[in-house]
């Protein structure tokens, strides 16, 4: 490369030993028009000269120039494409270091992101676990309380006690005893003549008609209880128990153990006017 900081004289074609005018005389004679007219030109003349020089001429130098131009064009295109499809193995060391830096930086950032997202996921997962667990527990509690309060139907093993009493000798206190005995024996749900018996249930006697929670019940009285059927049955039949008491009154009572007793009667709870839950 021939670089000298001297302005106009430093262009590569200028380092010719002689200017074009004093060129090889033979060559000039062969192709007079090939000669570029001497001297610096400006404006229109410059354009004209550029066109004239660029005109195709069948000389060796012109062919060489064309070849070089083609080579230059091809090289530019190839280099551009090479740069576009540059792969890692063609990068210089500093480029590779920069790429590596970039990649490791991004990897660190992504790692951190992964950790954050995993933490979030775990939190959400455990949150879902506890809340679903809590929902299940709450549902269980609602079911239990619903059965105890009589707001839900219930089914399960239990007994059906039928009291046949043509002489209407069985009165309210006896039914109350039955209910008490069943509760003592662990009955979880009790139905007396189609009325659900709950904590607030009262038994009445209205001119020989038994009433439960104010609702008259038909005879024979059918009492259904859900609980451990052996315990319930023995609680009814023990000596001095309900069955015997009823028999002494001149009525008959029978206890049937059943594997599935279904109680569908419901109790409508009265709204609490005084009692409030303790927070």
């Amino acid at each position, binding site marked *: 490369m021939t*670089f000298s900081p001297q302005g106009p004289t430093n262009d590569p074609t200028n380092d010719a030993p002689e200017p074009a*005018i004093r060129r090889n005389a033979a060559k000039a004679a062969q192709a007079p028009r090939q000669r570029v007219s001497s001297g*610096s030109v400006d404006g229109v003349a410059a354009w004209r000269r550029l066109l004239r020089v660029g005109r195709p001429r069948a000389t060796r*130098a012109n062919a060489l120039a064309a070849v070089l*131009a083609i080579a230059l*064009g091809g090289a530019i295109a190839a280099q551009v494409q090479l740069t576009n499809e540059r792969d890692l193995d063609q990068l210089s060391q500093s480029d590779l270091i920069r790429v590596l830096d970039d990649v490791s930086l991004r990897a660190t950032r992504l790692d951190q992101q992964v950790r954050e997202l995993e933490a979030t996921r775990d939190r959400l997962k455990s949150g879902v676990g506890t809340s679903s667990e809590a929902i299940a527990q709450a549902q269980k509690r609602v079911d239990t309380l619903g059965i105890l309060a009589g707001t839900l139907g219930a089914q399960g093993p239990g007994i059906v006690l039928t009291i046949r009493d043509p002489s209407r000798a069985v009165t309210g206190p006896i039914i109350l005893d039955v209910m008490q005995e069943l509760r003592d024996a662990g009955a979880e749900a009790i139905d007396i003549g189609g009325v659900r018996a709950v904590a607030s249930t009262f038994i009445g006697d209205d001119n020989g008609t038994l009433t439960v929670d104010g609702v008259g019940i038909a005879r024979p009285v059918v009492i259904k209880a859900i609980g451990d059927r052996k315990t319930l049955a023995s609680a009814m039949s023990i000596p001095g128990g309900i069955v015997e008491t009823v028999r002494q009154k001149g009525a008959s009572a029978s206890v049937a153990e059943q594997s599935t007793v279904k109680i569908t009667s419901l109790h409508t709870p009265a709204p609490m006017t005084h009692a409030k839950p303790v927070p």
Partner: protein
Amino acid sequence: MIPVLGLVVGLALGLLLDPSVPVWLQPYLPIAVIAALDAVFGAVRAVLDGIFNDKVFVVSFLSNVVVAAFIVFLGDQLGVGAQLSTGVVVVLGIRIFSNVASIRRHLFKA
């Protein structure tokens, strides 16, 4: 006309044929291209200055390319390839700019 046509033809060929540059040539090609461009602009300027010479153009073109490639090669061997390439590009860029400025003054009188 011929150089411009040649450049266009070469570009088209390079794009169409998609030549794979040999690995040993890859570090030198970009610098060589810049050097060749410098020679081309110098030639145009020489035409307008009235001192153009075909032979000088061809020789300067080739020597520019070879010297540029050699400088890059030397820089790579000395371990300062990147810096030296940058330097060569800067120098060639300055030359191209000054040549273009001269051409512009000739053609547009400005």
